[in-house]
């Protein structure tokens, strides 16, 4: 995977997690994985389509998921119910959306999919021939691992695209 796609995600994750949780975040050691990813309790999956294409996972354990969702929703949740699940999926959505804005500023226009949520430990997820770059992020509420399996798109948006001003207005 191309490392230039990494920083927009790390920056976006820092910004979003810091803004949402008010906590300090530290980055663990990067690693590149070729094989299958064995799921933790909760995994949010989103895809990118366009000049950058592939899949992004956000994985965490149940406790961290409940804590993050509680902070997001502003109420103390006890279990990973529907509300907590949608809170977690939304975190993935916001981070990915922000990262894709940063990617488009660098000339890689792409669209993100809706999030899907995988619940259950021990399943294997394969991105097939896309290697995954794994970034662990540690906060006081728990840790999140970001898995990036991205490539420069060979299909998808075929014409060069430019964002209209309204698409950039949210920046900052």
């Amino acid at each position, binding site marked *: 995977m191309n490392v230039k796609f990494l920083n927009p995600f790390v920056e976006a994750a820092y910004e979003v997690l810091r803004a949402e949780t008010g906590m300090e975040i530290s980055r663990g050691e990067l690693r590149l994985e070729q094989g*299958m990813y064995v*799921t933790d309790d909760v995994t949010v*999956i*989103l*895809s*990118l*389509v*366009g000049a950058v*294409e*592939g*899949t992004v996972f956000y994985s965490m354990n149940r406790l961290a998921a409940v804590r993050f969702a509680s902070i997001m929703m502003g109420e103390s949740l006890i279990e990973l119910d529907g509300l907590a*699940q*949608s809170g977690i*999926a939304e975190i993935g959505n916001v981070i990915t959306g922000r990262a894709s804005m940063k990617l488009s500023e660098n000339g890689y*226009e792409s*669209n*993100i*999919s*809706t*999030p*899907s*949520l*995988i*619940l*259950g430990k*021990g*399943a*294997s*997820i*394969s*991105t*097939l*021939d*896309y290697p995954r770059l794994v970034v662990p992020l540690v906060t006081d509420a728990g840790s999140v691992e970001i898995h990036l399996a991205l490539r420069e798109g060979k*299909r*998808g*948006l075929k*014409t*060069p*695209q*430019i*964002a*209209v001003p*309204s*698409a950039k207005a949210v920046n900052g």
Partner: protein
Amino acid sequence: MDVKFLNPFVEAAVEVLKAEIGVNVQRGSLSLHQSALTTDDVTVLIHLVGQVYGVVMYGMNTETGIRFVTQILGQEFTEFDSLAQSGVAELGNVISGRATIKFSQAGYASNISPPTLISGKGIQISTLDFPRIVVPLQTNLGELTVHLALRENRNGKLEEFVALTPAAKGS
């Protein structure tokens, strides 16, 4: 979910299964689910982005997966190894790609993501607030279950971007 998004997928699946695997397909009865999907052995997940957006999942058991790839790749498989996985993922990719061509003919432009393969029975996959239409497709090599959680994008997400004209490209 809008039912008009169902038929392109069913047609595409029937055509692809016939062409690639040489089987005839019988459609089982449709059902609509609000709750999370509980996986079978193998699930291929593909996202759609564009005027139709959401997620499509293809579920099957391992034996069916092995029989399908044996037909697709023309060689005997005894276990569900990485070649078999990529064969099954490609099947999902081809069906989804064909379905999006049908969508675009009907005026809904959308792109598909690369496939992700989830192995492991009994895991839950939630499409959150997207209800799922489930279509079982029976063949004599096994059953392929298609899960569709799709919506029409009325805001026209793709239209947030304007194509550059060739003249403006250099600037």
